[in-house]
Each structure stands twice: as C-alpha cells, then as structure tokens.
C-alpha cells in the first residue's frame, strides 16, 4: 500500500481507531427493535405442527377440529400453500451435476425429516394456535429412514427421494494428476480419518418473521430477522408472483445470525403465504426447540486424508476424500454443497506443496438441511490439514513451529495460486508464525509442560495456521445463477444542517457494520463521527446489494462507502470553490470546515454550504446545480476473493482420569488487511474463537438410529459458556489488499476457522505420553477416556 489511508493524529481520522459502536448503547438500554418484539395492528400468530417421523408418507390430515377452535383464523396444509407459491430447488449451475428435489413451504405427501413443518395454524395468539395444533390428526405411514453416511451410500439401501438412483447430491474431484507419484516417492506418509459433529448456530434471538400482505395495494411487507433483505425481496417476489417493487423486506435489529439467517426456511415462506391468504400480518417466531430441528445445521463431515513428506519434512502432496451428509434437501438459494466445496479447496492452503487430489461426495439423509454457517468449511479444512502437519512433525521429529515455518508459502513469494486453484494476492504466514511464537512465550510454555508432566499433570499446546475466504466476487454465487449480489450500494447525503446520512446495503447483525461505515464516511469526508448517521436493512430505503455474509461488510461495503463519500466530498468542494472563488483542488474538509488544503486555514463550515445549496441556490452562479446526494455502487474486481490468513494457538490441560478438558489460554495472530476499528476486529476474533471452541469441545446435534434429534434443547446441546472460556490473546499483522482503496479484508470467520484445529492439536499433544490419539470433534470426555482406554 503506497499512501497510508490513516494518520491517527489528524482530526477525523477514524480508520484504524477503536471507537464504540453507536448502536451498542441503544441495544444495551433494551431499546433494540427486534422482529421478535414486533406487534402490528391486526397481527395474527402462526404455529406449526411438525413431523414426528424422519421419513414417512402422509396418509391423511384431519384439520376439522382445529379449524373450529375459537380464535383460529386459518389452518393450512401443503396443498393450500402450493396453490400460491412456486417450488424452489437448491441447486446452482456451477456445481455441475448436482441435484436436489423441489421444495414447497409445507410438504404435500411425504415428510423427510423429524421436525419438518407439516401443517400451519394461524390464530389470535400463539397459545391458541398451539391449542389448535393439539387437535390436528395426521396419519403417517413410516418409510425406511436414511440416517448415517454409510447406510446412505449403500447400494440398494433406502432412498431419501424414492425414484432416484442413489442418495448422492453432488460429486466433485480436484486432481492435478501427480499425487500417486508423489506418495510413491515420499519418505514419510501420515494418514487419518476425521469426523466432525453436526452442529448449529444457536443465535440468541431465534428466527423471527412478520409478513404483512396488503391486498388493496398488492404490497407485501416482511419484517424479517435476516442478514440479506435484498435476497429475500427477490425470492418472495418471484415465488409469490408479486412485482419486486411491491415487496419490501425490513431487517432491523437482529439477535445474531452467523450465516444461519440467510437461507430460505419452509416456515418463513409459509408465513408469507399465510399472510397473503389472510390479508393480515402474520408472525412466527421459532421457539428454541423448533430452532434445533429447523435451523440449518452444519459441518457433518467425515474426511479421510493423507499427507506425503520428504525426509526433511517438506510437504509433497495431499490426498483427501470428504464425505458430507446434508439432510434431505440442498438449501436454497445458496445450496448445501458450498461447505464441502470449500473444505476440499481450503485444505493445505497455507502450504507450498503442488500435488493435490480431493474427492467430495455430498449425500442426502433424513435430517434437517445443512448449509452455510460462520466459517463455512474452514474449520474442517483447517483441522484436517493442521492435524496432519502435527502428525508429520512428530514423525519427522520436528517442532510444530519448525515444520510450519519450513512449509508455509513465503511472505515475499506472492502472488501465488494454490494447488486447488485459489489465487492469493498477499498473505503473511511467516510473520504470523513468528508473532505467535512470541505472544505464546512458546519456550516457557513447553518448559512448564515438561515440568508438570513429571507431576502427572497433562498440558497440551496446539497451533493451527489458516487461510480465510473474504470479499467474494460473483464467482461465489452469481456465476451459478443465484440472484445474490456481490456488489453493494450506498447513498450519501449532506443534510441541510451539514450532517451526513449514509444509506447502505450492507446490514448490521451486532458486529458493528454501522459503526465502521460511519467511521469510513466521517474519515473520508472530514467530519466528526457523531455527525454521520448510517441506515441499513430496508429494501425500500437502502440501495440493492449483497448485504452481509461471507465476510464482505468491511471489504466491499466499506469500499462502497469510501468511494461514495469521496464523490460527495468532491461535490461539496465544487460548491465551496464557487462560493470562495477558489479551485476545488486548493480546498479540503477538516472537522466539518472547508479549509485551505495547504495551510488548513478555516474558510467555511460545510453547514453553510448546505444552507446555501438547499435554501439560497439563487446566490450560486447561474447553471450551478449542487449535488449533495451521491449514490455509488461498488463490485469487487481483480482477485475473485480477498484471502486472509493467521494462526491460532491453544494451551489446555486434560484430566486424564475424567476426560475433562480445561482451556487455559488461546492465542491468535490475524491478518485481515486494513484494520478499520481494532476493538471491533478483536471482538470478531474473540466471538469467532468462542464459537470454534464450542465446536471443539461441546457442540453436536446427536441423532438416534431412527433419525430423532436426541439433544434438541439448550439443556442437552452444550454451547460454550463464559466459565469454560479462556482468555484470548490477540495480535495483528496488516497486509492490505491493493484491490481497493480501503485495503480491508474480512475478519468475521477467522476466529472460528482454526480454533477447533488448535484444540485438537493441543489435546493430542497432551495425550502424547499415552499413545492415545483423537481425530474427532467435539472432543468429549467419552472420546478422551476411550482413547486412554479408561473404560
């Protein structure tokens, strides 16, 4: 990066500064406006009867009694909604050969997972709707259930979709043809089979939607707790045949999303239809147990992988087979194969080797759908790669830091293309490794570990390098035919009193989107941040854009705001120049004042310019039309993705008698390019790491042989809690992308990407004296005790 964007000692320099989120106080004061809390006049409440069977034929449905209950306005089945909603299919064209059955809001004749919504009731209150559910009789005929990966792949076994040839959704292979040869000539080979537990997002606020169809205006308004209002505007419009301009989706405050709230859910589509059928607002809020059986799950993978090395520990090749089971359908509109695709493409990403082969097989089963959840595919790719690297290190006799230093792509060797085809602009593995070694005080940690081991205390140290995909271009979804934007739009205005309002398409889920946008606008215009108001999340107000997912808010949304603001500034200075009889280039704006660019002498406050432009345009030279509102769109060009990198470290203690693991400390060195707000970046890392630690030790959706979710409540599904979480030490390396002026990349998924991998390595390090290994997450006490042969 040539000219640094920031010099923190000049006024209004907000890029690189830790400033609080303007909306944090409002949320803390309990003034958030969540869809869960929304009450509209004449609003009704929906509840859903769910399938108790993982796979069954619907023989008959009797809704007479439910319909007759006082306070019930509508009882709707699949057939009722199929009349007004067109089906959807969760496939994308660039995943060649992928299949998935068409979906409707409610099933017509067959249920395909336990917990699938079957009948909808709309009533005066949720309680009455639930009373009515108890009066509905559904007659089912059991069908053979497909639960685990192996039986799903058995030839001649039961099928999730009768009439199809097998349960395969998608197959893909990467192969540069040289892998067998590399393995044949390797000095060392390490191999392992890894399993990863299905888990789910568990947002604080469950999914929430209020749909309001006004037949008099032909207008649908949906208050929706989602990350992607524009995507849903498009989908509601197309599937219900309402012109796009008459569909408005409002996504205000939202209690967490993590990718979970950007998919089409059957209940949500149904609620829109119910509102159309009734001409009244209809609300649905998933309760916690409904969330467990209907929110997307993720990360159900079994990976067999091997790595070849030469005698000195140079990685030569990797060979990988990833099997993943995704539920009964592929999710719409982003599909359920992106995760597996990213697994096989991210494996080995930090390293220099060239010989790679990977097979991905995506399989249907009778469970709820899986799809994109924070750090899509990354934790699996990272755990597989990094565990193999550690196994190789111990085989060759190298320290984990040494083998990585020897194999990572050198910081001065960019640009690079990975053996899987990803193009890296500039990464900093070497710098990050070095910094992690320092902040961990690695030497002392190892010494302490050796000391304690003599006293029967088993500590483990694990590290894991990662690469994260951010700032996605249309290569992600657009090329596959999905109407999901990779560009963003912003409208910036100078208000009559000299403040700035920014309407922008990226959305806020609590990560601070609005904060960083206001920082960028204030910084670029030359204004106090308090004088910038950012508005997000309303398709009727904010311009169309990709919104927030896959780590694009800062990198793409931020650049959009930057360029829009620069354009506004040019316009303001043009008017200022006319008023002051100067060249625009001789002027600048500092702290809301137009100044001489050279001397910084104050000339005119910008509120004066606004006053003149809005109220006394007659005093401007004839022909002048002040443009104090600017709209600007930005789509990433250059590299298809801005990759980031980093490395994590973990120190923990295993109680070898009980199998319980105590996390002692966690470390991360991360490079997300330009850091806009260090505080927010650090909190993204901390939150992401905690989610990754949850996956490492606690979270798993456990199913019975008949496809029933066994632990679908917060008493049984363990999420990470503060008492079990370690302190997290954070350091940064900054390698801005040259693709944008701002230079920012994403950071939201980096924490999750490598947390579980570093725990896996640390646990295996702790167990090293026992000849016990673990290759499965979550790492439960049962798995540890089994590995130690304690029972």
């Amino acid at each position, binding site marked *: 990066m040539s000219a640094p964007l920031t010099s923190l000692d000049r006024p209004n320099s907000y890029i690189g500064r830790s400033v609080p989120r303007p909306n944090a106080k409002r949320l803390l004061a309990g003034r958030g406006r969540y869809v869960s809390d929304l009450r509209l006049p004449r609003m009704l409440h929906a509840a859903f009867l*769910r*399938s108790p069977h993982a796979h069954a034929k619907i023989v008959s449905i009797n809704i007479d009694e439910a319909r007759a209950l006082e306070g019930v306005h509508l009882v709707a089945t699949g057939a009722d909604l199929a009349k007004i909603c067109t089906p959807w299919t969760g496939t994308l064209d660039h995943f060649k050969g992928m299949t998935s059955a068409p979906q409707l809001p409610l099933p017509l004749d067959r249920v395909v997972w*336990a917990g699938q919504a079957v009948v909808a009731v709309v009533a005066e209150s949720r309680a009455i709707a639930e009373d009515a559910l108890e009066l509905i009789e559904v007659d089912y005929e059991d069908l053979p259930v497909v639960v685990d990966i192996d039986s799903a792949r058995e030839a001649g076994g039961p099928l999730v979709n009768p009439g199809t040839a097998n349960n395969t959704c998608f197959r893909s292979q990467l192969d540069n043809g040289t892998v067998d040869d590399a393995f044949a000539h390797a000095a060392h080979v390490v191999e392992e089979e890894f399993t990863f537990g299905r888990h789910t997002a568990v947002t604080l606020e469950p999914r929430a939607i209020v749909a309001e169809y006004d037949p008099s205006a032909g207008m649908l308004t949906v208050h929706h707790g989602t990350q992607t209002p524009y995507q849903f505007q498009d989908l509601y419009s197309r599937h219900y045949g309402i012109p796009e301009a008459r569909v408005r989706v409002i996504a205000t405050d939202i209690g967490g999303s993590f990718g979970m709230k950007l998919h089409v859910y059957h209940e949500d589509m149904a609620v829109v239809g119910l509102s159309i059928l009734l001409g009244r607002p209809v609300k649905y809020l998933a*309760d916690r147990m409904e969330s467990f059986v209907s929110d997307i799950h993720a990360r159900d993978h079994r990976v067999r992988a091997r790595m070849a090395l030469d005698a000195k520990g140079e990685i030569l090749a990797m060979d990988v087979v990833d099997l993943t089971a995704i539920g009964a359908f592929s999710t719409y509109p982003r599909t359920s194969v992106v995760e597996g695709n990213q697994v096989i493409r991210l494996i080995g990403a930090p390293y220099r080797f060239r010989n790679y082969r990977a097979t991905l097989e995506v399989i249907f089963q009778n469970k709820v759908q899986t799809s994109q959840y924070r750090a899509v595919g990354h934790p699996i790719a990272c755990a597989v790669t990094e565990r193999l690297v550690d196994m190789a290190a111990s085989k060759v006799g190298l320290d984990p830091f040494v083998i990585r230093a020897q194999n990572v792509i050198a910081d001065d060797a960019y640009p690079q293309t990975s053996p899987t085809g990803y193009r890296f602009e500039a990464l900093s593995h070497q710098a990050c490794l070095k910094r992690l070694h320092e902040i961990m005080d690695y030497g002392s940690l190892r010494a302490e570990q050796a000391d304690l081991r003599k006293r029967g205390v088993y500590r483990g140290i694990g590290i894991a390098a990662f690469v994260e995909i951010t700032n996605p271009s249309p290569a992600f979804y657009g090329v596959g035919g999905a109407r999901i934007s990779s560009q963003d739009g912003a409208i910036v205005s100078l208000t009559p009193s000299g403040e700035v309002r920014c309407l922008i398409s990226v959305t806020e889920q609590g990560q601070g989107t609005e904060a960083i946008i206001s920082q960028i606008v204030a910084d670029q215009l030359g204004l106090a941040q308090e004088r910038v108001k950012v508005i997000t999340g309303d398709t009727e107000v904010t311009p169309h854009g990709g919104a927030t997912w896959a780590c694009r808010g800062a990198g793409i949304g931020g650049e959009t705001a930057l360029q829009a603001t620069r354009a506004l500034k040019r316009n303001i200075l043009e008017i200022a120049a006319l008023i002051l009889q100067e060249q625009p280039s001789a002027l600048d704006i500092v702290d809301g004042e137009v100044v001489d660019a050279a001397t910084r002498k104050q000339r005119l406050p910008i509120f004066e310019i606004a006053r003149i432009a809005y109220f006394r345009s007659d005093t401007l030279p004839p022909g002048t039309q002040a443009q104090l509102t600017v709209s600007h769109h930005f789509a990433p060009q250059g590299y298809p993705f801005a990759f980031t990198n980093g490395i994590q470290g973990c120190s923990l203690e295993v109680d070898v008698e*009980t199998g319980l693991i105590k996390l002692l400390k966690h470390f991360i060195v991360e490079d997300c390019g330009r850091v806009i707000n260090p505080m927010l970046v650090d909190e993204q890392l901390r939150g992401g790491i905690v989610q990754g630690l949850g996956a490492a030790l606690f979270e798993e959706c456990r199913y019975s042989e008949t496809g029933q*979710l066994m632990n679908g409540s917060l008493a049984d599904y363990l999420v990470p809690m503060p008492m079990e979480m370690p302190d997290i030490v954070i350091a940064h390396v900054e390698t801005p992308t040259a693709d944008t002026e701002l230079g920012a990349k994403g950071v939201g998924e980096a924490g999750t990407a490598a947390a579980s991998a570093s725990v896996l390595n640390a646990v295996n390090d702790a167990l090293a004296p026992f000849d016990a290994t673990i290759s499965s997450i979550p790492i439960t006490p049962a798995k540890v005790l089994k590995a130690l042969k304690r*029972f």
Partner: protein
Amino acid sequence: MVTNLASRLMSRGISRKRAVKARAFSYFRAATIDQALDAHARAGDDARFIAGGQSLVPALSLRLQAPRLLIDITHIDEMRGVRREGDTLRIGALTRHCEMLSEPLIAEFAPLLHAAAPFVAHPAIRNRGTFGGSVALADPASEFPAMTLALGAEIEIAGPAGHRRVKADDFFIDLCETALQPGELITAIYVPLFKADQRFAFDELARRRGDYALVGCGMIATCTGERIDDIRISFFSVGNTPTRVKGVEATLIGARLDAERIAAAQGALESDLAPPESDEVPPAMRLHLARVLLGRLLGHLGEGA
C-alpha cells in the same frame, strides 16, 4: 430449559406435538398449608403446587404438564425459614437455593448443603428455585435430593391425612417417584446438626459449570482421630434415584483413609451402582467417573477437608 429429567423427556419427544405457550390454567395463591391442601383436594388430581417454578414453568410451557390449577405456595409462612430445633436444623421447604449459600445457620450446621449449592444451576435459577421443590421433584441428577440422603435428613410432609415425617432413605423410590402422594406438600426438611467430630466432602464432574453433573457425590463422616466411625455417601446422576452406596460405606467404617482403603472403597462401588444406558455416557464410563470422584473425595476427607 428444564431439569435434566424433563429435558430428556422433551428432547426425545422433540418432534411430537409440543409448544412454547402453556395451556390455559387457573391460579390460586395459598396463605396457609391448609388452604393449599384444600385447594388441591378440591381440584382433584388436576392441580400442581408451584414453588420456585424453575422446573414447573418450563414443563408447562412445553405442555409436558397441563394442570387446570396452579397453587402458589410461596406465600406460606410456615414453610419458610431456617432454625435450630433440638439437635436438628429445620430448613423450610421454601428456602431458596441462594439462601443455602447466604444463610449462616446452613454454613455452620449443614455445610454439605452449603458446599453443594454453588453447583446447582446458575444464580438466576438459584434466586427462585427452592429446596422443597428440588426434593419433591427428586431429579436423580439433582444435588440436594442426594445430599438429604448423605445427611440422613427427614422430610416433613403435610397431607389431607395430617403431618408425617419420612426418612430420606425411604423417600426416593424410583424415577419421578417418591413417598410424596398427590396433593401432599413438603413443608420442611430436618437435618442433623453438623458436629465437631464430623468431616464432609462434595464435588461433581460436569462438562460446564452449572450443568447437571455427569456424576456427583457428597459424603459426611464421623471420626475418632483418623478412624472413621460412621460415613454416609450419596451419589447423584448415577441411576433412577439419588443413590446411597452402602457397600462402599461398609468398607470404610472402622478404617483409616489410606490409599489401600480408598482403592478398596472404589472397588466396592461396582456392586452399589448400576448406571443406566445413555447415548452419551455409557454405563462403564459413568462407573469409572464415579470411582474417580469417590477416590478424590475420600482423599480430601482423609486430608481433613
């Protein structure tokens, strides 16, 4: 969230008809024990007493229970308070979990309960949940019911037929089944006063602080010097009821707590416990954990903890 028991029930039946809003019910606030008993009798079996509500309210919301009448017993003065009565401590059934932590009489005369209390759920739940409610529910994964066994407590019950006292040893019968008959109230629990020649130990193994334990145990021993004259050991999360391990106790009475004796006690555990099948904690694993915990607690006891 409900108790371990209820959560197991609801998780398994997750996709059956269930709900998030309770079915409609009537509410009556009783001022006296008699009023409460009377209201229950008049409603037939279709009533529930509500104390802290920390187990009952979730069960109502999920429609695992749907009584016609809720009888609020939290305003009955006779069931409140902690006081000495002879050589026992009378702990009113309405004593809340948080009071087990803050009440000086409990810290002094029933230190085992004081030690167990921080392991019961989280502060918000401890602020409402009651001792009587916990014992009445008799969740085998709960701390307090098991501790009444270790303490040799007596449970005072009021019913249509009058008052009676039941020994903790006779109170817990099976999963969700106790000596309490429908329509009866626990009014107080009597605990022998802790004495100078006694020692106690408590701990549990849980994956997260505040969760129901994988296995938990409390014990109280009466000693002459290093010799154990009497010991009562009770486990929770090991079966259908809180479980006293009498075989283990027998190996310890009259002995000193050296390594050999502790190993013998651990060896005896197998015949006292029969952990149930569970998808996450197989019986052999639970038995192993119980052995480890027993060994550690006896170690503490030996150190005079």
